[in-house]
């Protein structure tokens, strides 16, 4: 135990028991909107992140539906190709940076202090700053759609020279918006690392932490390592566009391929940033509803660490057709395939946790199980793409689109939804409406597969991505995908309905809302009072 500094003055946050909530000497939070603008409370900031992410999920979703509506049948019907390109680009940017990442950060804000027995995040004001940068960044990004020449139209990967020499004027604003979002991610990640390393309840060792905390620790490390590289590469773009430098221009001795190397050095760890916390959520839910401890806790931790380290060594598998030396093709092919090993460990452990468990199928468990099955499909198509000579055929086709949507939608987003259903009783004090949640699950799982499974076939048959028109032989696949997309998109309104109903009322939840749940968050009341664990709990080592 660390020695204290000078005698403690009477703070508003005195040491009091956990359970009596707001009953003790806290200054009342400011009323109305100011409470949300000025808050330093991890739960309120977590809610802000989650609400922001949900709004952005629908905005990004509408962009996707514009794309799918245009692709409903061959020919150009609804939008012109320039706008189509802006829609594919903005859909990707919004979903990656404004929907999935803030959703996980919101869950981290809410749950990490509760799961490690901390009174709040380590740096609460910085936490608020990290959040409020996001609305600023994405208002600016969305405003580019209204600027002369339109918004970004070069795909979410913004390859030079499409994004430099041939880009619309608004690209400078896009770069500046992304800088703000990057600052938000870095500061948020620093806060999470400091919280996990420094704020654990007495007695909780690193290897006692719930896997959601572990996966976030490693994710935060990835964020701190690669978001600055993104900042660097977009700064070089900014210079090329506005100050006449030659970073990505071969005429001056630069190289457009340099852009791709730098981007994917950021981009590949980035895709694991979007999936590792999902692993953590699923690793919490499956043991709870199988009523068995997680199988292979330590191997789960090592597998996540291995995936994170490998993610720095695989970036050029996105560039197999760009003209890499043969040695590089082979190196990046083999390192990419290696990732299947720790990922396989994880899937094996989840399945083994289920083995001979007393399983029940509440909505969080349904989403988690769908995650395991459907994420694995995405993993296998990734393994196919990793084979360099095969990738020459798949590259830039709808097969790639199918692959990354399988890992992101029934992967990352299903895990987020599973987490939301799992922790809603803790946040609101009410169970979500189980019947509606199950409808939401079945609609989602059918919609996702209708949308993305045909894309495998379209891609293998040679349909290129990011094209508003296509040859007639792809019409059937695209018809099914578009119907599925509208079905999936519409059914997400059910998700909003369940959340709103749950906030307003519903079956009361006890502190331990799920029978098989074991982590520390289930020891505080439901709903969790504004301030929890001001006196650190004594951590009882469970059998992991």
């Amino acid at each position, binding site marked *: 135990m*660390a*020695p*204290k*500094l000078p005698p*403690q*003055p009477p703070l*508003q*946050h005195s*040491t009091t028991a956990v359970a009596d909530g707001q009953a003790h000497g806290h200054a009342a939070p*400011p009323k109305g909107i*100011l409470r949300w603008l*000025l808050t*330093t409370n991890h739960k309120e900031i977590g809610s802000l992140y989650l609400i922001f992410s949900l709004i952005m999920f629908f905005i990004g979703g509408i962009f996707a539906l514009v794309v799918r509506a245009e692709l409903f049948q061959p020919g150009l019907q609804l939008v012109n190709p320039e706008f189509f390109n802006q829609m594919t680009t903005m859909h990707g940017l919004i979903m990656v940076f404004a929907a999935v990442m803030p959703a996980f950060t919101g869950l981290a804000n809410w749950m990490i202090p509760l799961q490690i027995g*901390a*009174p*709040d995040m*380590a740096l*609460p004001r*910085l936490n*608020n700053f990290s959040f*409020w*940068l996001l609305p*600023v960044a994405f*208002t*600016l990004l969305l405003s580019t759609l209204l600027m002369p020449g339109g918004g970004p139209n070069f795909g979410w990967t913004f390859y030079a020279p499409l994004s430099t020499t041939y880009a619309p004027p608004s690209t*400078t604003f896009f770069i500046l*918006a992304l*800088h703000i979002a990057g600052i938000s991610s*870095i500061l948020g990640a*620093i*806060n999470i690392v*400091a919280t996990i*390393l*420094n*704020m*654990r309840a007495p007695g909780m060792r690193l290897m006692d932490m719930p896997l959601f905390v572990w996966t976030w620790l490693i994710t935060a490390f990835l964020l*701190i*390592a*690669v978001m*600055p*590289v993104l*900042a*660097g590469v977009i700064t070089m773009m900014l210079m090329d566009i506005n*100050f006449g*430098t*030659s*970073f990505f221009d*071969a005429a*001056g*001795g*630069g*190289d457009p*391929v*340099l852009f791709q*190397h730098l981007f994917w050095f950021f981009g590949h760890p980035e895709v694991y940033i979007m999936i590792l916390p999902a692993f953590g959520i699923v690793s919490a839910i499956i043991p709870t509803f199988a009523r068995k401890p997680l199988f292979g806790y330590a191997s789960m931790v090592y597998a996540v660490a291995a995936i994170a380290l490998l993610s720095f060594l695989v970036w050029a598998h996105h560039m197999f057709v760009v*003209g890499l*030396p*043969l040695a590089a093709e082979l190196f990046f092919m083999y390192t990419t395939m290696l990732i299947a090993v720790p990922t396989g460990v994880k899937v094996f452990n989840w399945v083994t946790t289920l083995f001979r468990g007393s399983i029940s199928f509440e909505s969080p468990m349904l989403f988690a199980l769908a995650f395991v099955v459907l994420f694995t499909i995405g993993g296998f198509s990734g393994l196919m793409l990793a084979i360099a000579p095969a990738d020459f055929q798949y590259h830039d086709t709808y097969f790639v689109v199918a692959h990354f949507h399988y890992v992101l939608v029934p992967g990352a987003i299903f895990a987020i939804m599973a987490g939301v259903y799992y922790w809603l009783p803790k946040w609101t004090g009410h169970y979500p409406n189980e019947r509606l949640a199950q409808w939401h699950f079945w609609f989602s799982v059918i919609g996702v597969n209708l949308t993305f499974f045909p894309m495998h076939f379209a891609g293998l048959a040679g349909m290129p991505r990011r094209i508003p028109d296509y040859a007639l032989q792809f019409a059937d696949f695209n018809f099914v995908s578009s119907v599925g997309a509208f079905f999936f998109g519409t059914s997400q309104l059910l998700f909003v309905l369940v959340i709103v109903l749950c906030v307003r009322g519903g079956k009361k939840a006890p502190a331990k809302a799920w029978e098989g749940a074991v982590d520390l968050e289930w020891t505080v009341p439901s709903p969790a009072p504004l*301030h929890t664990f*001001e006196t650190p709990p004594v951590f009882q080592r469970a059998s992991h």
Partner: protein
Amino acid sequence: MSGGSYYVPATSRWPILGSLALGVMMVGTGMKLVYDTGLPVAFVGLIGVIAVMGLWFRDVVIESQGGLYDAQMDRSFRWGMGWFIFSEVMFFAAFFGALFYVRMFAVPWLGGEGAKGVSGLLWPDFVAHWPLLNPPDAAVAGPQQVFSPWQLPLVNTLILITSSITLTIAHEALKEGYRKTCRNWLAGTVLLGICFIFIQGVEYYEAYAHYGITLEAGIFGATFFILTGFHGVHVIVGTLILAVILMRIHKGHFAHENHFGFEASCWYWHFVDVVWVGLFIFVYVL
């Protein structure tokens, strides 16, 4: 481990004001770059960002002086600063990576080297060399000549290395309780920082006036200015930080056994110093 007295600030207006100010600054910058207007907007934003940082840090200093922080809070700051510096390392790594890639691969390939040799076909007469004085396309004018590392860059290297030593002496003096010694050596460090910035300014002037090293001068100018430029910005920020620390020493802040604000600024300064050594070797010497 949690001790039960962790200081959680109630509310603060600085985060939201800071993000708004940053947004205004970015909008202004974008307007200036794209539409050649809006420089005042950018300045208002910049002033806002600086003001918010000042007021936010002021709150932190007041809380620290008021004894609200315990040893656990101290560790939070240490982790926070350490990881922040790691993020800065990765930021510079992107630019060093670009330099290495261009020198090892892109320029030789343009000269026809390598198994593919395709990019060598673009400008068949181009001969790869470094420093790249003659970029592949005649439309891009390269630098006339580059700096000798053994003149101003060497002086700057010695200045920065000396400043790291003087800063360490100041820190040791603070730990031993010799506050006046600490103040003097710290003042010396700030002066060395200012000297570095001045010399770098002279070098930039020379680059544009006599050497033809400009942002437009092909990949050499681009990598030169992005590396030295961002390093220069960090030296300016570091010098400002040390100046604030000097003022706080003067006011009697920082106990001799507990002074993380001082240490954090030392970490930052040493980091900036190490980056310069990398710059000196890879931009100027090799």
